């Protein structure tokens, strides 16, 4: 069992997309629109280069009705501040 667990960890580390750490609630959905690396220019704003603090601050601002989002204000409202912080930290850790 222990050996299996170690093996699993090694395999997780070797694959690019899935993070070793378990995704906090909601986090794994982000990459449906925001590519983990790069992102099409002119399209949905990329978040790949943003820090965890930037992502958190933007989401909290959207929640408060600030900024000019199209859809992220509606999504941000579904998360608590600790949840947003956890998502931002996970997104950055997985790069």
């Amino acid at each position, binding site marked *: *069992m222990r*050996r*299996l*667990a170690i*093996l*699993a*960890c*090694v*395999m*997780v580390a070797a*694959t690019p*997309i*899935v993070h070793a750490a*378990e*995704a906090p*609630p*909601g986090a*794994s*959905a*982000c*990459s*449906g*629109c*925001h*590519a983990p690396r790069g*992102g*099409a220019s*002119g*399209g*949905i704003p990329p978040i790949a280069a943003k820090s965890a603090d930037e992502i958190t601050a933007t989401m909290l601002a959207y929640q408060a009705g600030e900024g000019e989002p*199209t*859809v992220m204000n*509606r*999504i*941000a*409202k*579904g*998360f608590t501040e600790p*949840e947003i912080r956890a998502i931002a930290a996970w997104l950055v850790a997985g790069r």
Partner: protein
Amino acid sequence: MTPWNPNRRAVLKTLTAATVTVTASAALSRPVHAQGAARVVVIGGGFAGGTAARFLKGHGLDVTLVEPNPTYTACPLSNSVVAGLRSLDRQTFGYDGLRRAGVTVVHQRASKVDAEARRVTLGDGVALDYDRLVLAPGIDMNFGALPGYDDKAAEIMPHAWKAGPQTTLLARQLEAMEDGGVVVMSVPANPYRCPPGPYERASLIAHYLKTRKPRSKLIVLDAKDSFSKQRLFQAAWEKLYPGLLEWVSLSSGGQVTSVDPASLTLVTDFDRVKAAVANVIPPQKAASIAALAEVADRTGWCPIDPVTFESRLRPGIHVIGDAAIAGAMPKSAFAANAQAKVCAAAVATLLRGEKPAAPKLINTCYSLVAPDYGISVAGVYAPSDGRLADVEGAGGTSPLDAPASFRAKEAVYAESWFDTITAEVFG
């Protein structure tokens, strides 16, 4: 250690399976699996199954994806193909990206699932043993539910609700229609694949008629009185397509009760509507393998646990995407992708003998009302009372009073989303 150990079970099964393989004919022997990693079989290589396979592999599991077609044709943006604004090639994706990610892809149809033995049988007779099964087969048209409509009728009155030849057929019919013709759409009651999809299609067909065949008309016969993003759609129709698009609600007699392909007629309780082009979107159900696996209930769809997506009817089988009853989540590609990632993580956790934590899920669906006019609906979901429920205060549609620049941005985002999600699944 937890009282039940799935890995020990897997080893036992491997031993048993090895014995079977020795005695079975060579043709029936299944691929040899690496000892150690638990085996997950995924049935269906669409948005749900493709995503699940990739992420299960990322969790270090031994993953076999079963999909009959060598390529996948995506439905999102296929309404633009119907309206002559986009080529079907741009909807088509192969499975090499998943192979490169280490997924074993088998181009066969799954024909049988034995939940007791934890075994899937493929069309060619090969059997695949699994520790957990992910079922992501999408939908079938529920041909029995609309008298006169079957797969033969669909060659005359296309549904175009599975992208591919049906999409091309409907596009060609519209192209061949003379100016002044009446296009009729039939829209089913809930639940069905892509709740706003019929209204996006109506919009883009109206756009096609307005720009190419302005003396024509579109009638939408609906088995509902309300629909997704309704106020946004109707405001846009009034502005962009006045007098061209007529929506007939259930209470105005919109429900189609039968069709007659020979005379291109759609029958309601009050009327017989003759069409030049008829697009019949029939009632739907989970694809047939769901019923064969005994994970579909009497509604034709599959009840699941909202934390793990494990079937409520058969343990060890997880159901995701359009086939599942996902509570408040719509049957969308975005939802299928989000569910697949949560399900993959839950499967990996369960196979370690641990308990998955409660997830949150997101959906965003864009619809094009015109090529440069996009609208969206979004939601955030969490398990509550055994189902996936809307998180209060979140989600909703684009604002009703947004400027043209906002609509143009959301039209661009629709395509941007499609490019990103298809790259994540198939890239």
